[in-house]
Every structure is written in structure tokens, then in C-alpha cells.
């Protein structure tokens, strides 16, 4: 019931993998499929950041991706929110001491919701996206 209060529109999501190990990405995909069914909240994955309300980022942000990630963030229309999935985004996880990663990603783009886990469960990812939605509605 509580959800009804703030789901007034369908949040469209753009997914960006910045060099993670893929596990976070398959869990994000799993969140969209029948068992977890993100579509019941209107969540839809889109192919272009220009259509997206929420940016879901995973991975430790490799050097090669920094500029591109920033550009993708800028291309999104406001209001927008960023959800960071996995501990990679917070401090690099096992890759923390690699010279090629630049985690945390909040050094590059503002993050609204962090979802810890390596990888987090699909339920947690859904929860994070709904948290981000609350932020969008407030704005």
C-alpha cells in the first residue's frame, strides 16, 4: 500500500556496466524477469539514456569508461536518479587496488541509492530502484 503513494509513473531505467564482473548485471536482468517482475512497478529497461529516469550503474568504473559514463548521466533528462548496484561502485570490491579502476563512482557522478552486495539479490535491487523513485517523486 505504501508503494501506491509514490508510484505515480513508470520509471524507465538505463543500465550501465562500467567494468563489473557481470554478476551484478545478470542480477539486474533477473530482477526484470517473472520471479521478481519489476514490470509490475512499471519499471522498464530502455536502450537510450535520453529516455531514462533512473540510471542503474554497476562495476568499478574503469578509466576508459569515466568520460562516457559522465556523458550518459548528462544526457538523461531531469529529474533523474542514480542507483549504484554492488560493492564495486562503492570502493572497487576486489578490484580496489587496480590502477585501471576509479571507484567509488560517486567521484564522477552523483549517486542517490547504494545497493550493497557482491552481487546484491534481485529483491534488493528492486528495493533500491523504488527508493530512487521516491526521490524522483519528491522533486
Amino acid at each position, binding site marked *: 500500500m505504501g508503494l501506491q503513494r509514490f508510484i505515480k509513473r513508470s520509471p524507465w531505467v538505463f*543500465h*550501465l*556496466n562500467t*567494468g*563489473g*564482473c*557481470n*554478476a*551484478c*548485471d*545478470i*542480477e539486474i*536482468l*533477473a530482477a526484470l*524477469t*517473472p*520471479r521478481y517482475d519489476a514490470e509490475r512497478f512499471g519499471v522498464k*529497461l*530502455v*536502450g*537510450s*539514456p535520453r529516455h531514462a529516469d533512473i540510471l542503474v550503474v554497476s562495476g*568499478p568504473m*574503469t578509466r*576508459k*569508461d569515466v568520460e*562516457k*559514463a559522465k*556523458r*550518459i548521466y548528462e*544526457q538523461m533528462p531531469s529529474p533523474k536518479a542514480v542507483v549504484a548496484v554492488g560493492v564495486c561502485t562503492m570502493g572497487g*570490491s*576486489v*578490484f580496489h*587496488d*587496480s*590502477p*585501471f*579502476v576509479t571507484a567509488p563512482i560517486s567521484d564522477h557522478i552523483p549517486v542517490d541509492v547504494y545497493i550493497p552486495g*557482491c*552481487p546484491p*539479490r534481485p529483491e534488493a535491487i528492486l528495493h533500491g530502484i523504488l527508493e530512487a523513485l521516491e526521490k524522483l517523486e519528491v522533486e
Partner: protein
Amino acid sequence: MSEEYRELGVSIPIGPFHPALKEPIGFRIWVEGEKIVKADIRFGHNYRGIELIGARRNWIQILYLAERICGICSWSHQFPLAQAIESLMDVRPPDRANYIRVVVGELERIHSHMLWLGVLGHEIGFDTLLHLTWGVREKVMDALELISGNRVNYAMATIGGVRRDITEAKRDILLRKLDDLLKGVETLRDIVLTHKLVLLRTEGVGRYDRELALRLCLQGPMARMCGIRKDVRQDEGVAAYGDLGFRAIVARDVVGKDGCDAYSATAVRVAETIQSINLVRDALMEMPPGPISAFPKPIVALTRASKAEGEAIGRYEAPRGEVIHYVRAAKSDKPKRWKVRAPSLINVYSTKWVFPGHQIADAVVIAAQPDPCIACTERALIVDLDRGERRVVDHAYLTELSRRKSKEVMGDV
């Protein structure tokens, strides 16, 4: 490739990064009208310097780094590394550990193949298939969670064995789950291998031939779809595969001929999924009692490994093909050199040879055929040689094209 761009008088546009759902890899396609005449592939966006940072971790820590090379094949990287370290130290894991290794490895293969099937369905605009396969796949994830406590990145392998036992109670639940799973996968097999849309969009698409496959050293299901019976599990009998009498499946065992195309690849993967379910069941039934690791504690293994010297390799058949881990040790708690050879590098690059001659709408199917971790097209540059036009298209556009073609070939259903 940049010379060819210069020849064509085309500069390379660095457009927005576009991984869509997937990891970044760039396929570049040159076309004449609708026909692809040339293709090229770029790697490198995911470079994390894993081998470099691996040299700073000790023998135990590096196992968990190996696992995070790829989340889909986490076992397939952790296990060959553990194997390599074991052969450095000249240690043999106990039998029970070998059987548990088969269980985890095969469950991983099932989840990976199911994932691929879903992606294929998505690429050809058959989203029902995507949701069906991912629905079935959740049962495997449950099984993996039951064994290891995590859905992905299970942290099961360790030097000298495995980290968690499969108790009686767990085994019974697993066996029940496997029955469920088998039913689901058999239904899927019947749908996939006979559905008109799948046939129309995959038969003859991405056609290799046996010579090409041998010349390019294709790996895993890509080799087996061309009739090359090559599989590390069969050839090396790693873990308990030798005891279980494993024999690799090639396309002609399933559909009667080695089509070397996307349809054969699908058939091989679906048949392997069923084979894996049976392997897991056999392994669970025949598992001998005993310890699960050659060492009582990881620290003991670490101490022993720190005294090892020399070099060794570990091999395993990942869902996508042969994974090779090479390590060199010099009496230290860290490896001196660690090198990983993953099968996708070979398989993905081979698509360069089969793109020409196909329609643009088939590009995503060919790109997905080798199962490049998750079928990953970062962005494709279409150069129309007839009109001298160039367009940068993204994966979403290519998928859209592919879906339109599906609608066309199916008529107004």
C-alpha cells in the same frame, strides 16, 4: 582497422557509450544496402588489470579475484585456478570434493545456457522465450543458493577441495528441484527446436564450416555445433567427469546434422543443459562419503602453497569453452605470474568471418551466437558502401531491426 576507415574516407565517431543491457564490446559493420560485407570487433572497455592485481594477492585471496573475472562463469574461473595451484603443490582433492565440483560446475552450465537461450529469444523478438527461460533458470539459482549461500559468485572452490559440503538433507531437496528443472527444460527444448520463428531466424544464420572452425580454434559449443567433439571434461576427465562417463554432445547427436549455424548452436546448448541436469543427478547419487578438502583449514593450504615452486596450468570446460589458467610460483605466498585464457576471446573474434553476406537484421543473432558473456554489442557503425553513407546505430536499433525481420518472416501472426 583505422587504415580501412581512411581508405573509405571515414573518420571514427566516438559516440555515446552504449552497452544497452550488456557489457561493452564494439562490433563494426560495413554494408551494401542491407547486406553486410565486412565486420570488425573491438575489445577493451572492461579492462581491469586482473592479472596484474592478482600478483599482489596471496594464493587464497586470488581465488576470489578469479571468481570475479566473470560473474556468469565464476566457478569456471575459480576451479581451474584451484586446479593449477593444486598441481603446483602436487595435491589431490578427496573424491567427495571432486563430485561436489561436478555438481557446482554443471549447475553453473545450466544457468549460463538458460541465460543464453533467453538472450537469443530477446534478440529475435521472441520475448516470451526470454521470460520462460529466465523463469526456469530461477530454479537453478535456487539450487546454487542452497549449496553455497549465494546466487552468483558462490565461492565454492578452494585449494585442495571445496568449501561447503552437500548434506543428506540438501541432497534430497536438490534431487527434487532437478526433477522440476528437467521438466521445465524439456518443455523449453520442445518449444525452441521446433518453433517456426526460431527456425526461420537461426537456420543458416551465422554459418561456419568444419574447416573454418578448426582453423579458428573455436571453443566449446561453437566447436561442437560444427561436429568437433572437443570438451575438456571428456578429454581430460577433470574432477569426477571421468568416473561419470561423460561424453560431449555435438550437433548431429541432437538434430541429425552438423549445421554449424545458430540453430545447431541452440540445439547443442539445449541438449547440454539436459545432459548437465543428468550429470548433477548422477553426481549427487554416486557421491562417496569422506572429507571435502585435502586441508583442514585454508591457512594450511596457504602455507603449503607458499613453499611451491614451478609452473602449472589448470583447464576446465566453461559453458563457453575451454578456460586455461597458468600460474608460476617462486616459493612465495603470491603467484609470480598468473595468466588466464578465456574462450570468449576466440569465439567472439571468429564472428568477423561469418558476418559478411548476412542481412543487418541478422547481426545481433550472429553476435549472440558465441554467447559473448552476455551478447554484447556496444555500438555498431554502419557504412553503406553503395550510398557512401555512414550511420552510427546502437544495439537497441539493431535489435529493433531484428525484431522487424522476425515479424516479416512470420507474417501477420
